[in-house]
């Protein structure tokens, strides 16, 4: 849908062709980076990383719900940070559900934790979330400085979510499973995948010291894992291409062009009055809150594309505050934003009967508390680094 819309805004002259080309050139490296991370995550799954996660959680928890929740928090935070939020939602969530079900623990708090952490735990690294990749390109920060500034906000936001979950789901977490349920054998560690991912992370740091684009490091890591799968005939060239989600990459480019047209045709002036100036604590809080609201009305992807050009002149602090808002904010709305929700309701694609009241109550407690502590932590980090 976004690709024809992008064609339309260019064809009607709402966005001059050279602006559209400039936008596509700006987003090109971001999209390449994203493709590499998606391939990396997909082949970690092929190597059995997520099965090993399930086995580790089952043994660690041994049927005790609180221990399982802690293990889910640890794994979902790490996987979101390193392999992106897509990996947590598409690959880890079914494993967490299967683990809870197999060990006789009520799955609800743990599945909710995966969905919340896919947003909240995606603050740490540029690769954790597409919004971060976009902001990273706009902020001019190095990979390591980005991670250093976001480390404390990441930790305190996850900590706040954990406390909220322990209280909110206290009843479900009190129902311990019967002791004799099968917790499975020892996990078989997919060493090759772990070492490749570890080397890729180290490569990001080294590349950042020498001024090399981190996207090349991600591409190298993706090539190693994909190459091994190809050599062992566990993948065909077609599956490698599909692992990079080409339709989604085209969607991101087209969305960038459409949003640029909307921003250039008046939205920038409108929002320019609302975005706070400066990087004091109150300005950061205001920026993050505005970003969170916008992410819930539209979606976090268009929201970050709209807000980045407005926040970038105020410096990296403001850009990172936008990120806190657009990354944590979507936990407020089922399906990430009112726009998605309305669209899905209208076309009647799914009638899931989710308890929207419960989902929203959890979001109303978790989002403001984790967002507030994260912004304060970011403000503190900006004073230190």
């Amino acid at each position, binding site marked *: 849908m*976004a690709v024809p819309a992008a064609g339309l805004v260019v064809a009607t002259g709402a966005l001059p062709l050279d602006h559209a080309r400039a936008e596509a050139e700006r987003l090109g490296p971001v999209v390449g980076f994203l493709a590499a991370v*998606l391939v990396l995550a*997909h082949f970690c*799954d092929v190597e059995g990383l997520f099965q090993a996660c399930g086995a580790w959680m089952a043994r660690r928890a041994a049927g005790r*719900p609180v221990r399982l929740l802690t293990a889910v928090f640890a794994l979902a935070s790490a996987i979101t940070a390193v392999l992106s*939020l*897509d990996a947590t*939602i*598409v*690959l880890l*969530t*079914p494993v967490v*559900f*299967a683990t809870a*079900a*197999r060990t*006789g*623990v*009520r*799955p*609800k708090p743990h*599945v*909710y934790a*995966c*969905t919340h952490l896919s947003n909240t735990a995606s603050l740490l690294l540029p690769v954790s979330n597409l919004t971060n990749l976009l902001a990273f390109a706009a902020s001019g920060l190095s990979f390591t400085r980005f991670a250093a500034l976001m480390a404390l906000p990441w930790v305190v936001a996850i900590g706040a979510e954990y406390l909220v979950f322990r209280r909110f789901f*206290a*009843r479900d977490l*009190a*129902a*311990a*499973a*019967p002791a004799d349920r099968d917790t499975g054998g020892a996990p078989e560690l997919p060493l090759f995948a772990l070492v490749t991912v570890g080397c890729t992370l180290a490569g990001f740091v080294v590349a950042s010291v020498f001024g090399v684009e981190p996207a090349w490091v991600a591409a190298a890591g993706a090539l190693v894992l994909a190459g091994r799968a190809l050599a062992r005939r566990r993948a065909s060239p077609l599956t490698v291409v*599909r*692992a990079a*989600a080409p*339709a*989604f990459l085209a969607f*991101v480019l087209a*969305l960038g062009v459409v949003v640029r047209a909307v921003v250039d045709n008046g939205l920038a002036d409108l929002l320019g009055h609302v975005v706070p100036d400066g990087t004091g604590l109150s300005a950061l809080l205001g920026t993050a809150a505005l970003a969170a609201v916008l992410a819930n009305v539209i*979606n*976090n*992807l*268009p929201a970050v594309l709209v807000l980045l050009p407005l926040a970038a002149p105020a410096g990296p602090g403001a850009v990172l505050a936008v990120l806190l808002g657009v990354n944590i904010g*979507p936990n407020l*709305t*089922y*399906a*990430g*934003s009112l726009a*998605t*929700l309305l669209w*899905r309701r209208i076309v009647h*694609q*799914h009638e*899931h*009967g*989710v*308890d929207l009241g*419960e*989902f929203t109550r959890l979001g109303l407690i978790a989002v403001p508390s984790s967002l507030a502590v994260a912004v304060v932590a970011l403000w503190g980090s900006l004073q230190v680094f």
Partner: protein
Amino acid sequence: MRVLAWLVEGTWPACVDAVRAHAPDDSEVVLLHVSGPEVPGVAHGAFAGLLGRGHPRGHRPAGDWGSDPGDRLEALGGASAAALLDAAAERLGRPCTRQERSGRVEREVVAAAEGAGLLVLARDGDRSRLGPKSLGPAVRFAVDHAPCPVLLVWPEPAPDLTTIPPPPPHHHP
């Protein structure tokens, strides 16, 4: 007489034990598990929130970026409910019928209890003290609306009487 035992993850062994202790030998035992829609629904929602990843038409293989994890959860949920009922039937050790339902949990339980001689269920709230909070919303609904006699059990040994708060001071008019 039909005895219906509503089994929930974590607390079901107490219900099975109560059936063994209290159901007459000639009664027909039905073990019931109800899958609610909200857990797969949350995964569907998270996937929908990944703007641009979804492929609304046609299902992709699990693990593909276009495959909705909520579908996978629904399939896994069915398998886990069957495993729970198997374990319960084994613990019961007498002939019984297994029933799997899906929908709004508390309403499905009440519907299944129609015409039953006894509904057995376990407290699902705060079980650290005696009192109304030891019933969560689902069990509260089932107890309030059950169209048959109800046997309400503690999943673990009940807390002692000292957990009841002291009576309110006597008011003289």
